[in-house]
């Protein structure tokens, strides 16, 4: 049976889909067979981020309606043979999409995969609950902004109440220069507030922007790529190796970098 992990946040725009896609990519590069389920019905963007929007023929709703089998709806990624996607329906309000119907689909397919990642919608309403009840573990994505941390804390409490005990945090869009100069919440304080295990820090990186524009993978060797690789290793092997976003801004050269960044 696959490890089922929901990627959630509470607040929108913090990078759930980006984390989901890049984590799935890195896990698949490690030889794991990964299925990413787009559980964000109505506002689905996973296909665009992955650049597979033209490959989709069927979606989850078609499976529920009996128009196709689950295996027919699953789409293989362009770049990674081990990475698959189960696309969401474009309409959010389909009464046939129930927790039970979704659970039935996932139960049917998860034996073929090592990891099933759920891209959860923002908010804590029905869509969120639908995604969460399919998973056994959660990754809460937040940014170092007060509003995102506040929402992430609420989500942590809800997940604990729902019986999901394995809660991991990924801090996305972290700016090492601002953290060093004290203009951003620190990693330590975010972890303290959320009371969950930190598994990764992803730096603010222009390469992510390029990935979102073109679709597909983030450039190999970029800061974001390295940080996602570390997160994937942490998930698979449990070995703690957090990307140090402040490293390049430490010391004399780091100080020059920070000053230059302010000027530019």
């Amino acid at each position: 049976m696959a490890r089922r992990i929901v990627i959630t946040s509470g607040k929108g725009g913090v990078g759930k889909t980006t984390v989901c896609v890049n984590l799935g990519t890195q896990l698949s590069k490690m030889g794991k067979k990964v299925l990413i389920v787009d559980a964000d019905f109505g506002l689905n963007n996973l296909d665009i981020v992955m650049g597979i929007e033209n490959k989709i023929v069927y979606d989850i709703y078609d499976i529920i309606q009996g128009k196709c089998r689950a295996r027919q709806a699953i789409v293989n990624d362009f770049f990674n043979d081990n990475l698959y996607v189960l696309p969401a329906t474009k309409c959010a309000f389909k009464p046939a999409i129930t927790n039970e119907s979704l659970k039935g689909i996932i139960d049917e397919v998860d034996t073929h995969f090592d990891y099933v990642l759920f891209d959860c919608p923002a908010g804590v309403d029905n869509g969120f609950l639908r995604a969460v009840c399919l998973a056994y573990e959660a990754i809460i994505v937040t940014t170092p902004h007060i509003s995102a941390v506040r929402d992430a804390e609420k989500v942590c409490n809800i997940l604990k109440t729902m019986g999901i005990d394995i809660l991991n945090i990924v801090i996305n869009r972290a700016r090492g220069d601002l953290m060093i100069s004290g203009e951003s919440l620190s990693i330590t304080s975010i972890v303290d507030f959320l009371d969950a295990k930190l598994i990764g820090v992803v730096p603010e990186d222009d390469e992510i922007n390029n990935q979102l524009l073109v679709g597909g993978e983030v450039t190999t060797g970029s800061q974001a790529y390295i940080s996602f690789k570390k997160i994937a290793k942490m998930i698979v092997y449990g070995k703690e190796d957090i990307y140090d976003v402040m490293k390049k801004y430490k010391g004399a050269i780091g100080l020059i970098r920070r000053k230059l960044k302010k000027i530019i």
Partner: protein
Amino acid sequence: MDNSSMQNYCENRLKKMLIKDKQDSPQKVTGVLKSEILYVLKNYMEVKDYDIDVDITISDNGYYKLIIQADCRNLKTVSYIS
């Protein structure tokens, strides 16, 4: 405001916000908690609904503090508790 005090200000602001959020939720729990505590206590003592007072407060570190006060009329004899 200098940068280090900005970080402290930000952390304090977030802390206050989270504590305030937590203060809103206990009201919903208190009623349910009270009836369940009463159910358990009745096995061991003579206590009425209006004798028990359940209160949840938030301490400065963000932890919940549960305070239960009950006026008990009589304790049941242990050997007779089935």
